[in-house]
C-alpha cells in the first residue's frame, strides 16, 4: 500500500511537485504518465526516500518515509530511471551485494539471487562484468536488485525505457504478474503500456494530477477513445497545436 499525502517539492522558486495525493493498494498497478519535467521522477524519489519532500508525506505499508525512512525503505524495491549499476562488479556479485544490504543471509540469500536472475532472464550473463552488458541487460540487472527481497511495493521509473519490443513485452508481462500480489507504481511515456499492464493510471502535468482512473475510464474521458488524445488535451504542449 502506498499512500501519498500532499507531497510537495520545491527547488528554489520552482515547484516540481505540487500538493500531490494518491493511493495505490495491493494488487493494483498504477501507471504514472506525464510529459517530461512533469514531476514523475521527483515524486518517485520522494516516495522512496532519496530526496526529502518540502512538505507532505508518503506512507509505505503504513510506515512514513519522512519519520521512519529506514523501516519504510525495507518495504520497497526501486528501479531508478537511469538504472544505475556498479560497472566494476559482475551481475551476480552486484546482486549478492544488494542481497547483503537487504539483510539476506546464507541459503535465503542464494535463493533470492537465483530467483531474481531467473525472473529477469539474466542466466546467460550472470558471471559477466556489468560494463560489458547491453542496455537491456543493464536494465534487467537493476530490476533484479529491486526484486531480491520480495518487497511488498515496487516503484519502477520508466522500466521499459530503451528496450527492444521483445524486452518491453517481457517486462510488461512481469509487471502484470507481480502486480497481482504486490503494489506496483511505474512511470512511463508509452501510452500502450497503460492498457497492457496497468489497473489504474494517473496523468501528471507540472506537478499536479490532471487525470485519474482505470484505462477504460480514461479512454471514455478522452471522447475519442484514444489515450493519446486525452494526454495531448490535458498536458502542456511546448509547440503550437
Amino acid at each position: 500500500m502506498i499512500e501519498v499525502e500532499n507531497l510537495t517539492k520545491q527547488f528554489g522558486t520552482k515547484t516540481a511537485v505540487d500538493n500531490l495525493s494518491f493511493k495505490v493498494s495491493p494488487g493494483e498497478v498504477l501507471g504514472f504518465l506525464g510529459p517530461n519535467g512533469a514531476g514523475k521522477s521527483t515524486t518517485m524519489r520522494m516516495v522512496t526516500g532519496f530526496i526529502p519532500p518540502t512538505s507532505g508525506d508518503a506512507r509505505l505499508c503504513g510506515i512514513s518515509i519522512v519519520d521512519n525512512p529506514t523501516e519504510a525503505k525495507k518495504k520497497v524495491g526501486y528501479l531508478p530511471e537511469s538504472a544505475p549499476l556498479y560497472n566494476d562488479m559482475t551481475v551476480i556479485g552486484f546482486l549478492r551485494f544488494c542481497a547483503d544490504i537487504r539483510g539476506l543471509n546464507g541459503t535465503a540469500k542464494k535463493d533470492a539471487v537465483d530467483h531474481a536472475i531467473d525472473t529477469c532472464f539474466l542466466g546467460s550473463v550472470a558471471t559477466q562484468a556489468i560494463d560489458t552488458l547491453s542496455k537491456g541487460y543493464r536494465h534487467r540487472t537493476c530490476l533484479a536488485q529491486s526484486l531480491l527481497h520480495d518487497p511488498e511495493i515496487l516503484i519502477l521509473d520508466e522500466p521499459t525505457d530503451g528496450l527492444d519490443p521483445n524486452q518491453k513485452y517481457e517486462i510488461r508481462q512481469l509487471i502484470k504478474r507481480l502486480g497481482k500480489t504486490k503494489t506496483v507504481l511505474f512511470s512511463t511515456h508509452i501510452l500502450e503500456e497503460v492498457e497492457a499492464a496497468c489497473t489504474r493510471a494517473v496523468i501528471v502535468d507540472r506537478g499536479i494530477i490532471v487525470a485519474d482512473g482505470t484505462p477504460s475510464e480514461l479512454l471514455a474521458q478522452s471522447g475519442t477513445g484514444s489515450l493519446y488524445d486525452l494526454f495531448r488535451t490535458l498536458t502542456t504542449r511546448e509547440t503550437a497545436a
Partner: protein
Amino acid sequence: MKSIWTIFKREFVSYFTHPIAYAVIVVFLFLSLILTFTLGSFLEARDASLTYSFFLYLPLVLMVLVPAVGMKLWTDEQRNGTIELLGTFPISTRSVIFGKFFAAAAVWFVALALTFPIWITVNWLGDPDNLTILSGYIGAFLVCCTFLSITLLVSAFTRDQVICLVVSAAICIILVLGTFEPFVQSYSKALWDWLVASITSIGVWDHYLSLARGLFRIQDFVWFAAIIVACLFGTSAVLSAKRS
C-alpha cells in the same frame, strides 16, 4: 554494523579491481623509500632508527598520494548515479560514509604494511627500538586517515575527480608545508611567538613527529580524532544538504 561491513567489502574489492590502488601503492613505495635513502640519509647517519630517515619525509609523499585514493569515493557514486541506489537502500548515510572511509584506510594500511622491508633492514643492520617504529607506523596511518577524511569531505561536494584531487591535495599540502621546518623558520621571524606556536600545532608535523619519536600524547590523538570526526560529520551534512 553489517551494512558498514558490506559497503567496506564492496569498496575494498573495487579498489583492487581498478589499477588505481596498485599505481598509488607502487608510487608510494618508490617515493617513500627513495626519500629515506637520499634526503633521509638512512645509511650515512648510521642511526638504528627510522624516525628521521623514513618517517620524517612520509607526510610529504602522503599529502599528494592519499587524495588520489580517496578522490573516487563519492564522485564515482554521483557520476554513475549509484548514489540513488544507496539513497534508497535501508541503510543510513553514516554507514555508507564509514564503510567507504574504512575501505580507503584499509588500502593505506596495506600500502604502509608493504614498507616492511625497511623495518627488516634496520633490524638487520642494527638494534633499533621496535616499539618506536611501531608508534611511527601508527602515526603514519593516522596521518593517512586524516588526509582521507579531508578528501572524503571534498569528494562529497563535487562530481569531478580531478577537482576533488586538486582541492584536497591543496588542503593537505597547506597542512603539511605550512608547518614544515624550513617554512616555519622563515615566517617565525615575521610573526609573534604565540601565533607561530598556534599555527604549528594545527599542522601535521608536531603531532606526527611526536608519534614517530615514540611519544603518545593526548593532544596528538585529539588533533587526529578532531579532524577525522569533523570531516566525517561534515560529509554527512553536505550529502543531506545536496538532496534537499
